[in-house]
Every structure is written in C-alpha cells, then in structure tokens.
C-alpha cells in the first residue's frame, strides 16, 4: 500500500524537478558597434548580493554592440558553485583578466579572451587588485585567519606570468584600493571593522623591497585611490556615516602631503585625461535618506566644474550610482545603477556631452569595469 502511495506521489510531483544545469549566458544586441574601436570591449563585474553566491561577469562588445550577460558559468562549468560571492574588483593585465571575489576568498585569473579560468588563487577576504611591472597586487582585509591579535590587513604580490603568490606585506587595518605613482604603491587603509577607531592613512609600499616605507595621514575610513597624470592621488574618505561626511582628498606624491580637500562626497571615482568623474551616494543622517550627486573635477588645476557628466536628465532614473568608467578614446562614460542590490542593475553609456547613448540590464549590483584592448 505504502509503496503504491509513494509511487503515486512520485508520479504526481516527481517530474517537477529539472536536472541540474549550468547557469546560462544571455546575449542581446544593445547598440550599433564601432568595428574600428581600439577597445574591443569591456568586462563588467556584478558583485551579487552577499550570501547569494551571485557574483557574475558580463561583457560588452564595443565593436559589435552585443551584450553578453553572465558569461562565467558557461565558460567554466566545472568550477564548483561558479564565480562566487561578492565580486569586489576586476582588472586586466596583459592577456589575463583578474577577478577579486571577496566572500569567496579568491582571486580568479581568467583568459581575457575566452573567459576561461587559468587559475584560482586563494586570498582570504581580498578586496582590490592593481598591477605594476608584471606583478599583481591584491589587498586583503586581514592577514591571518582567526587571530584576534592580528587586525591588520595585507597586500599580496602575485607574479603575472607564473601566477604564484610571492611576497606579502602588512599594511593598515582593512585596506581597500591601491594605486601606483612614481614606482610606489599607495594603499588606502579604512579600519572599517573598528568604528569609531578608523584608520586615517595611506600606506606607501616600495615594490622592490616590498616593505611599507611610510604612512600618509589623510582622513578617516579611506576607500578609493586613483592617480592622475600629474603625480597626484585622489583619495576618498567615507567619513563615519554620521558626523564626519565623506570627502575627496588630493595627495601630492612628491611631498606625500594632502594638498587639497574637496568638500564633496565621492563613492565612485574615475580619472581620464584631465577630468575626474565622481558620483556619490551619501547617507544624510538628519534627513535619514541618501543624497546622490555627480561631479566633474579638472585634475590639472584641481577645480570643480559646474557641470555634470549626465546632462539629459537620465540621472533622475538612477537609484544608486555605483560603478564608473570612461572610454579613453571616445570619452564615453559607463555608469552603473545598483538599484536595490537584489534586482538586476543597469549599465548606462553616456557620450562626452552627457547624453545617454544606450542602456542595458546587467546582473545584480553592477560595479567594476575593465577595458579589454
């Protein structure tokens, strides 16, 4: 009797479960490509909401106008549970694409052309990647796992040819982005795990000796750091989210001193030629809501322009501006909207005059962009 009931039950419901399958890629043509574009395309890393294991990689072919969404799984179906949880940074160096996956504690090294994995390098709580002289440098929040006396972060050096981890240097607490100017590696320390006791320095590392040679005092809770072509670093401070607002600082690497402060919030920052493109989502505690702003700064004379890089009113549709990149040839601006974090975002492309050229639906939390030449 029981057997027959079980069988009946199976017949009723048993067919509803599909065989497990590889998460598919989606493709659509979004705009008319430029076959002569010096940049072949761009990779967009979607962070994916934490715990969902939904970091994903999209590719925009600038020459054909085709958008390829979620390419990692079909290129690498054998990787257990895919790209992972919270993609935090992406970079291309030579023929390789480097993806930092924060919660998954790994650096994925892919072939930039095929998207196929070359190697996985395990780095606990890794955050950002940057490159200098055939080395990749990856910052990580903590140097040791499970040591209550080791709150400091590290930067790890990886050889881009052998893909071997080489040296490690201890920096400040919870280091974020890095930039290289005049043969020195600058690391933004945040100290984000111990509010209100934030870090307030940039660590300066000599890539030859791989030692921290000094710290530059800037402001609390540093995040992004970008170099301009004049030897200056643009460094963002996230403030304390309450009394101390988010600010943008300019550090002169010749003197290693702060030389200018812009009283503007900056959550994303991108420098191309003489222009710094900035967008910000800042929580206003008294008003209990987010204030969004878009700013342009001329980095040659360090002045704020009185225009935005969006001029056609599209900014009204953008809920959370998140990732930002500028095409060095066309000066097109690529800006992502992360929206509610749990729904697909949008990638917008604006021309140099701030008019929208196209937009496309991305993965969840579109955030980091790398150009493929």
């Amino acid at each position, binding site marked *: *009797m*029981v057997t027959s*009931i*079980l069988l009946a*039950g199976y017949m009723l*419901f*048993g067919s*509803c*479960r*599909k065989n*497990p399958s*590889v998460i598919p890629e*989606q493709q659509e043509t979004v705009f008319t490509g430029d076959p002569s574009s010096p940049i072949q395309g761009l990779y967009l890393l979607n962070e994916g909401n934490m*715990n*969902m*294991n939904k970091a*994903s990689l999209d590719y925009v072919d600038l020459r054909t106008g085709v958008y390829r969404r*979620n390419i990692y799984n079909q290129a690498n*179906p*054998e*990787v*257990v*549970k*895919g790209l*992972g*949880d*919270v993609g935090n940074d992406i970079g291309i160096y030579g023929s390789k694409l480097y993806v930092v996956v924060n919660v*998954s504690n*790994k650096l994925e090294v892919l072939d930039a052309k095929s998207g196929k994995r070359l190697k996985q390098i*395990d780095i606990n*709580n890794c955050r950002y990647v940057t490159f200098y002289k055939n080395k990749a440098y990856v910052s990580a929040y*903590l140097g040791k796992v*499970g*040591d*209550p*006396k*080791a*709150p400091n972060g590290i930067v790890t050096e990886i050889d881009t040819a052998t893909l071997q981890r080489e040296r490690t240097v201890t920096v400040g*607490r919870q280091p974020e982005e890095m930039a290289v100017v005049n043969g020195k590696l600058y690391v933004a320390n945040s100290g984000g*795990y111990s*509010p*209100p*006791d934030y870090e307030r320095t940039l660590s300066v590392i000599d890539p030859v000796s791989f030692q921290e040679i000094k710290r530059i005092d800037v402001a609390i809770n540093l*995040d992004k750091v970008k170099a301009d072509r004049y030897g200056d670093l643009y460094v963002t401070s*996230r403030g304390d989210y*309450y009394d101390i607002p988010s600010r943008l600082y300019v550090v002169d690497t010749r003197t290693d001193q702060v030389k200018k402060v812009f009283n503007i919030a900056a959550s994303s920052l991108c420098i191309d030629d003489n222009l710094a493109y900035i967008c*910000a*989502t*800042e929580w206003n505690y008294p008003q*209990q809501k*987010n204030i969004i702003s878009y700013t342009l700064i001329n980095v040659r004379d360090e002045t704020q322009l009185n225009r935005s890089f969006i001029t056609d009113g599209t900014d009204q549709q953008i809920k*959370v501006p*998140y990732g930002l990149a500028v095409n060095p040839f066309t000066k097109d601006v690529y800006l992502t909207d*992360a929206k*509610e974090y*749990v*729904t*697909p975002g949008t990638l917008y492309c604006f021309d140099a005059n701030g008019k929208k050229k196209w937009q496309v*639906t991305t*993965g969840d939390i579109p955030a980091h962009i790398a150009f493929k030449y």
Partner: protein
Amino acid sequence: MEFNMLFAPVRTGRHLLYQKIALCLAATLLCCPKVWAQSRRADTAATAKVHELQQVNINAVKDRIIQPSITPVQRLSSTRLERMSSFSVADAIRFLTGVQLKDYGGIGGLKTVNVRSMGTNHTAVFYDGVQLGNVQNGQVDLGRFSLDNIEEISLYNGQRSEISQPARAFAAASAIYLQSKIPTFRPGEHTHLRAGFKTGSFGLWNPSILWEQKLTNRVSASVSSELVQTDGRYKFRSSNGVFDTTASRSNTDVASYRVEGGLNGTLPDSSTWRVKAYAFVANRGLPGPVVSNKFDYPQRQWDRNLFLQGSYNSNVNKRFSFILNAKYANDYLRYLDPETVKKTGFSDNHFYQHEFYFSWANRYRLTGAWDVALSSDYQWNNLDADLYRFAYPTRYMLQTVLASELKLKDISLQGSLLHTWVNDVVKAFASAGRKQKLTPSLLMSWQPGGQQDVTLRAFYKNIFRLPTLNDLYYTTIGNTQLKPEWAKQYDVGITYNHTYQQQAFAYLSVQADVYYNQVRDKIVAIPGANLFRWTMYNIGNVAIKGFETTIQSAWNTGSEIVLNAGVNYTYQQSRDVTDGQKSRYNIPYIPTHSGSVTLGADYRQLSINYSYLYVGNRYDQLSTDQNQVYNYMEPYYTHDVTLGYHTMLHRKPIKLGLEINNIFNQDRELITNFPLPRRFYRIKISYTI
C-alpha cells in the same frame, strides 16, 4: 546524574525492548498499521481491547476534526505531533497550509515561519497565552521549541477566535499558539514521571524528563526539562550537471538546555491560575551560506532566554469574567565573529533585552447572545548592546482593545477595535518617538440552516507590525523615520465536518479559504553607497491572492485497523506591486503551489505514519522574465515515515518510535546556499511511571 537514574527502568528491560523494536520493524515490513493509543494496558481481555479500540477510534476522529471557528484555524495536538516526523515546533508547522518555513538548516539553524506571504514579523507566537516577544528583531526561533512538552500547536489566520483575550492577541496578522502540557490526574494518582530519550543522525542526544505532581486537590506542579546535544553534521550535495560535489556541513553543533516549571491551580469559585518559569540556554555554531570556495564558518552564538509568567482566569459571576496576565522576560544573546578582527580582537557583541508585560482582559455578557470585552496590555521593553553608537532604546507600549461578539442562531459576528500607543525613548541619538494607531477587525461565521456540519466564514483585518528596535536603532542600519508595515487581510472560507455512522468512511473534515492580502510599506534593507551602509526603508507593496485547503479523513476497515488520511494544498500568488505594476513572479521564497499528504494506520499497538511534503519552485530574489533563470529554485518534496510501538513495561506505558526522514535522499535548500540534510533518522523512547 538525574538522567541515569531515570533511565534505570528502561535498562532493566533491555532485552524486552530489543524484542519489541524487532517486532515493530517486522510488523512494519508487512505493512501493518498502528494503534497510537490512549490505552493503558496492553494485555487485557478481548472485550477491553474492543472497547479501547473504539476509544482510540473516537480519539483519532476527534483529534482530526476541524472544529468550526470564526477565523481559520489549524491545530496539531500532541497525539498528532507524536506521529509526525518532527523534532521542533518548526518541523511540525511546515505541514500546515499557508505556512512557508524559513529554515537555515540543521537542528541549530534559525527557523521562522511566514504565514500567507505577509512576512515573518506579521506572525505572533504565544506560549501558554502570553506572547513571546523579541523587540530586537521581531523573530521567534521556532526551532528552539521542542515538542517534548507541547500539548497543542494552533495557527490562527487573523486572530484567535475569542474576544476575551489580551490585546496583544489582536495585534498581529496571524498567530501561533503553543500550549504546554497541563497535568491531569486520574483518581488516586499523585505523580507522573516520564523520561524520554531521542537519538539519531547528526550525533543527536536528547534526554528529557517530565515530572507532574498533585500537590493538593486544587494545585498541581510540573517540571519539564531537556538537553539537546548534536554535532549537527550532515552531508549535502551540490551540482550543476558538470561539477558534482558532496561536502559535510560544518560549524553546526548545538548544545541547549531547557527547564520549565509550572504551578496550576483552581480556586473554589472555579477560577484558575497558572505560574510558569522558563529557562533556555544554548551554545551553537552558526553555519553560513555555502558559496564558491567557502563552505566553513567560525561564527558562534550563545542564547539565554528566561521568563516568568503568571495568569489568573476569573469567573466572578456568569456575566463578568476577567483574565490577568503578567510576564517578565530576560533575553541575552552573544554573537562572536572571529572573521571580523577589530583593533580590540574578535568582533564580539552582547545584546540584553528586558520585558515587563501586564494584561487585563475583561468580558461582560450583556445578554445571552451578546458579549463585550475590553482588554488593556502594557508592555515595557529595553534593549542594551555593546555596539558602537548604540541608542539604548526603551519602548513603552499600551494597547487597548474593545471587542464585541454577537451569537445568533446561525450567525456569529465579532468586531474589534485595537488602539496602540507606543513611545520609544533613547539614551543617545534620535528616537522614533511616539506613534498611535487604531486598527479594526471584523469577523463572521454562518452555519446555514443551523447545521452543525457546514460553517461559512469571512473576516477582514487591518493591522501593522511596528519596526523592530534593530530596524530603528541598529548602528549604521537603523532608520528612526520608519513607519509601521501594514497588512490588510480579506478572507472567505468554509469548514465542513461529517461523521458517517456505521460506514467504512468514518469521517470527513474539509477546510478551505480564499484570501487577499495587501502588505504595504514593507520594511526592507536598502543599500547605500557600499555594503557597510545599508539602511532600513519603508519600500515595497505586495499583493497576495491565495487559496488553501486542508482535508482530513478516516476509514474503518471493519477489523482492528484504523486508517486516516489528510491532504493539504496551498496556492499563493504573492506579487510585488511596488512600482504600480504587478510582477509576473512571486516574491522571494514563496512557491505558487505547495502541499502535503499524510497517511496513518493504527493496528493494535503499532502505528505507521507517512508524510509527503511538496514545495513548488520558488525564486530567491525578485524576478523578471530576464533574470528569473538566475533566481529559480527547484521544487522539493520529501517523504518521511514514522513508526510507533506502544506497550507496557512493568505495567507502565512505554513508547518507541522510529523516524526516517527524506527517504529518497533529496538535496534541497529552503534558503539559497543553506543546504538541508539528506536522509536522516531518529529513534525515540519514552517511559512513563
């Protein structure tokens, strides 16, 4: 140790016990049904047997008949709970219609329920008539309540169908009532002592004891205690058709201890009183999401929940009665995160909650058919935490409800108006301040032509849930501007009961409801510029259409075999309507179709019970045609079998049980990346002196 002493009687009869287990298994293989049995003697005369069987039969029928009520209600009595493959209240409740269990896996993982898609915080949980609060996050972990000491679980949509009850009972969109066992003594009895033991998969070790004592003719005492220890480890499998990996869930150990004691009394004027003290202590690992390259987590949690509550139920005279309830609760939670190393060491947070509660519910009978009730509840909550920039909030809440009930020949009408006044006071930073709301409910039932078999029901209720103290004040996340989250419910339903005399088909019980719910100003976390800066907002409206039915039946086979069968089915269309247009996909984790089938058979001292649970496909995030493929979650369906055997050992009843869960080894997740166990077993023994 006290447990050793208690297990002594079981040990002396070990060979007998093995024999009985073997018998029980053999009987099962032959597909024999069961007697679950209220019977007290195994080897009685044939006539007595027949008598007892009839008794059992009647009990089984009574147990499953859905009593008509003005609001939809589903009950699970202790006899039914015993038959089910359930360890905690959460395990049992997943078999009710309209309930979606949120289960993070294992014995220690958080288990909460979402009733009719309105969200966890819209379901209130009452223990012996007094609400179990958690002002910190509004969630009551139902995995914490073992079934060991539970007499009955009932789930009410809307509210419990009485007007004479505390104001809190009117203040949620749905309510779960957990009723602990109240001692009853036969003439000449003074003491009950029951020792139980469960073991099985996950290294489970669960001894329990229940002691009941008649102190005087009018006062009885009971003490119930249990220890749960488990390593929680289980294998799970993950595959996309190309990769196929099997791993073991880690950091899943739990050690918990519960002790509760109560005094129950009746006064000469037939008023009753109860006092209960409760303590629960747990130390557990918190298994995290299984994501690429990270399967193991080191986070731990310690809980300590204490409360003392008392109630007095008076019948002053026939016209006037009142109920007094009072409670003090003290909750402590410690969360240790070795993955977050601060300047001072591991992130280690401690949370302390205090609650004082007092309720006075009055009922006055205006005429034989018309009652009015006035209830007032006062509640004081305080949250203390060693968080940076914490507000140290204290919440004062006063709730008053005026309710009335009119019982005519065929028709019952009930209406209530609840007034809520709440004020938050903080030691630092901003406070959410004061709020006042007035919320109605209107309920009716109709028995056409005064027939007892058919009851038609309808209700309307508009209620809100307050932002929790975490929603308002949690450092960097809280938003003091939050408004309450509203839930409006419309429900129409029918209950049908019929007992067939002298037929093989003994009875049929059907309950069916259609409903429409609107959830407005949902309190959700919305991110800011980065992952550190999430903030709570009132965003999101959900429209929910649903149909649910539960059917229970029993058959007499003419022999000593009693069969019963139940089917539950739930259809839900719960769509996000925030942007004015309706999404084509259900909100996260709500299946369109879900249901269960339970079959039971009793034969003399044996019982076998089979449960099948089906939960249809779901989406783990808000979905569109474009992204649903990335959010799709497979349906799951589990088959569980429970075998029971009941006999006498030294003239005292002993019960043996075996559970086999998820027989076909299905890999499943209720929450994305939190895999649940494959096949697992439990063995239960209990012995009553």
